[in-house]
């Protein structure tokens, strides 16, 4: 066996790592928290549970497929650095306490995913409110070569239940993308009911597009945890080869 094959075997075929009950609980695991605000804050109640399941099944991330909901002004939020903010309508103007809490959260390492489940008003109102949270840093388009699109899967475009917005927008904090705003109802593509059926039909791309939405969700979780790891020099030749 040459070195390349051996490494391949390492990467692909070795036995499972034993998981054992431990005293560590959920603290270092990925819990995606649903942000609560005045209004319909949970348009896709089963979306996050499914995404967490998929993340756990597809990657080495230990994700907790349980619901966790926290208000935006909660100090508890800091224990869960991945916040999911969804809505089908307009995001109401945030209170001063919410703004200050979110500003601190984003400045010290928190990550927020805003998901528009409606007609685009939620995404634009999120951009408006986030401009109040991080003044002077308006949301901009996430470039196609951003590490978010290669943090686990090599993804070439954003997708969700719809393809309403062909791009993701985001807000940069320091060197890191701290907020990602999707206008394509990612949650709608992820949501699956208790009986195992997809709750919403994905249009226009069907199941391929749903898979793309999951891949994007996995990449976002991977980016939240590993940031620009896939931009490290060591990964470049491999990624370039596969993208060709």
């Amino acid at each position, binding site marked *: 066996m040459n070195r390349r094959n051996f490494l391949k075997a390492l990467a692909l075929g070795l036995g499972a790592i034993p998981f054992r009950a431990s005293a560590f609980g959920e603290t270092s695991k990925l819990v995606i928290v649903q942000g609560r605000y005045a209004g319909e804050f949970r348009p896709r109640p089963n979306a996050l549970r499914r995404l967490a399941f998929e993340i756990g*099944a597809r990657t*080495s991330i230990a994700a907790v497929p349980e619901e966790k909901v926290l208000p935006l002004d909660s100090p508890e939020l800091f224990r869960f*650095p991945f916040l999911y903010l969804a809505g089908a309508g307009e995001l109401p103007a945030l209170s001063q306490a919410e703004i200050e809490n979110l500003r601190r959260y984003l400045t010290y390492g928190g990550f927020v995913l805003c998901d528009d489940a409606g007609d685009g008003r939620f995404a634009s109102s999120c951009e408006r409110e986030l401009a109040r949270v991080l003044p002077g840093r308006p949301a901009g388009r996430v470039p196609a070569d951003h590490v978010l699109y290669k943090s686990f899967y090599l993804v070439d475009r954003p997708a969700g239940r719809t393809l309403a917005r062909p791009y993701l927008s985001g807000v940069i904090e320091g060197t890191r993308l701290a907020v990602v705003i999707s206008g394509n109802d990612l949650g709608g593509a992820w949501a699956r009911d208790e009986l195992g059926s997809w709750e919403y039909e994905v249009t226009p791309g069907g199941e391929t597009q749903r898979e793309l939405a999951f891949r994007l969700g996995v990449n976002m979780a991977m980016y939240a945890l590993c940031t620009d790891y896939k931009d490290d020099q060591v990964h470049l030749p491999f990624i370039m080869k596969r993208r060709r």
Partner: protein
Amino acid sequence: MDGLYDDWRIVSLSPWPVWLLAALFVLAALGVFLAARGLKRERRPSRRFLLLSLRTISMLAAIFVVAEPGVRLLQTARVRSRLAILVDGSASMQLPAGSRGTTRTAEAAAWLSKVAPNLAGLSAEHALEFYRFDGALTPIDEAAARSGVEADGEKTDLLGALRALAGSSGSGRKLAGAIVVSDGTDHEDLRGGVNGASRKALEALGFPVSTVAVGGGTVKDLAVESIAVEDFAFVRNTVEIKVAVTAAGIGDVDVPLVLRREGQPVSQQTVNVRGGEERYEATFSFVPDEIGEFVFTVSAPVYEGEAIEGNNARSFVLKVIRDRVRTLLVVGRPSWDQRFLRTLLKNDPNVDLISFFILRTPSDQPKAPDTDLSLIPFPVQEIFDTQLKSFDLVIFQNFAYRPYRLDAYLPNIRRYVEEGGAFAMLGGESSFGDGGYEMTPLGEILPVEPGGSAPTEELFPPRLTEAGVRHPITQLASGAEANQAAWARLPELPGINVTRAKPDARVLLDHPHFTVGGESAPVLAVREVGRGRTLALTTDSSWYWSIVASGQGGGTSRAYERFWSNAIRWLVRDPELTPVLVQAAQRSVEPGQAVAATVTARSSDYGPASGADLQISLVDAETQRILRAEHVAAGVDGTARVELGTPPPGAYKIEARATHEGKVLGSGQDVVAVRAASLERSDVKARPDLLREIASVTGGGFVQASSGGLPDLALAPPEVVEVGRAKDRPIWDRFWPLAVLGCALAGEWILRRRWGYA
């Protein structure tokens, strides 16, 4: 003329002011002019000439009468100007003048004796002054100059000496010129020849400098003339050392040059010396694999009959530092603990981070072909075999080795640490006993060992132990109380890997109520292993000290940053965290100069160890023999300064060991190189060309001493000055100027009447 007076000049003795005399002169000229105009119609030239002559004579006579000219008799004298003779008294003058073996000083003395009559001839017009110069200018008497000056100066500063001469008052007498008798081996302002600033300085002297060159012959010698190397080098990066070798009179030989680090050969080069050339260059390159300060020596063999043997070796000190802390972070799975540590390391400009995260385990199903994934194989062999030694710090974060067949590489990691590396294991369900490290080579070097099953998850505040109160890693704030308060402010942590500390480990943080074998379970423990260090943090939640702490009423992530910065500095042995710091006053010492050092001792809480006992010794770096040992007490600031004598040329270590109240605080060392020979004593080559240039720039002359004559001194003649008496003698105050005036006027009047002009 009176015998008292030796000079005279014509002067005006009139009491009238000069302007009045000038006006009179104009009137006289006008008188002549009017007369000439009045005679224009006179056709007979003889008459015209006669009348005009009479008018001119009368006008001149009038001027003479009014201006009262006289002779001023003067007594004068010539002032002797100074002629300075500067004789080189630097150590290079002890060297042979040529193959015959007489010294340069003797050659200079012989020349002075030979030209003594010529100099005596100059003394009528010039006062001769004799000086000896090296780095300074000292007056000497003529006899001392002629019998040979003492040549022991460690410097030759030609320009400095000439400047000092120009600045000397010389009782107000003018300096007519200088004669410099030297070999020209200047290592100060003129070391690069006469150019730019030094040319201007020479021109500004204002007197001609004539030069007499001694030591023009060939001297047999081989010398390591200079070494060009940076003051510091980066560990594991190639260092280039350029060595200049000069050879004269040793014939055609291949000279082996050896570079040694504190006695151990590092590299060798050969210089092919061929008759004609005098200067050769050799380049050594090597890769330092250890940080610290080291003395290196480049040496060449000594050939028979060399003028100087001490210049065949030259030492220098090289400080080998780390560029950045090259850190390998291996992570078993992406988690918040990894995310915050990576961000911190990545943003630290002092850290060069290489990370490997296991993003997918074999049980994970990405539902996509490999080509759709950005995953790369984990280059185990490359990291843990080939590259391992290139890292300053290796961190395993929640990483189990078995799935990646790392068993074979664990001994490498142990050896890497024992040889000076640093290793940290951070908690998680795949770390310590849970990661199967018990009874492995890696487990052996950890500060903790597995201690049983995990307790139920429960938040707990980690507690600073007695050792933790003082240890640099756990210093979040300066001062014990502020530090305790800083720890108390941090959020409580959930769950730990259950371990117990090894006997030689230091527990810095422990669990406040969970015990293992009667001892509190360690949360943070450190250990010295061979020449390296290890750290165990048995929690996977140190990230709570970052974002969670920031979320607590005005908190920040500063404690987290400080903790990790401290931990990394301690792990990689940051020199500033050394308990005993030894600093040589000078790393490169001239022969005969004292070796001195400052030793600073810090107590275990890293405050100044006032009154600590310091045992300081000077050790020969090659033989490890102690040459001198001092025993001193540190001052209030924990510092002491010691002098360690004047050791012979070579490489030395200054070692210090500090104890306080019977407890060993630690030890430290620095290095120092005593140069084999100063440049003054090692550079055998005379520089007549420089002397010739000095003469040419200043307008003086140049000769070789062997010619036995004086150079063209181009001295200005001495100044003449009045020294007192002067006497005025009127010369035109007799009656005849008036008579001439009267006759001329009368004659003109009579003739004008007769010829019908009146």
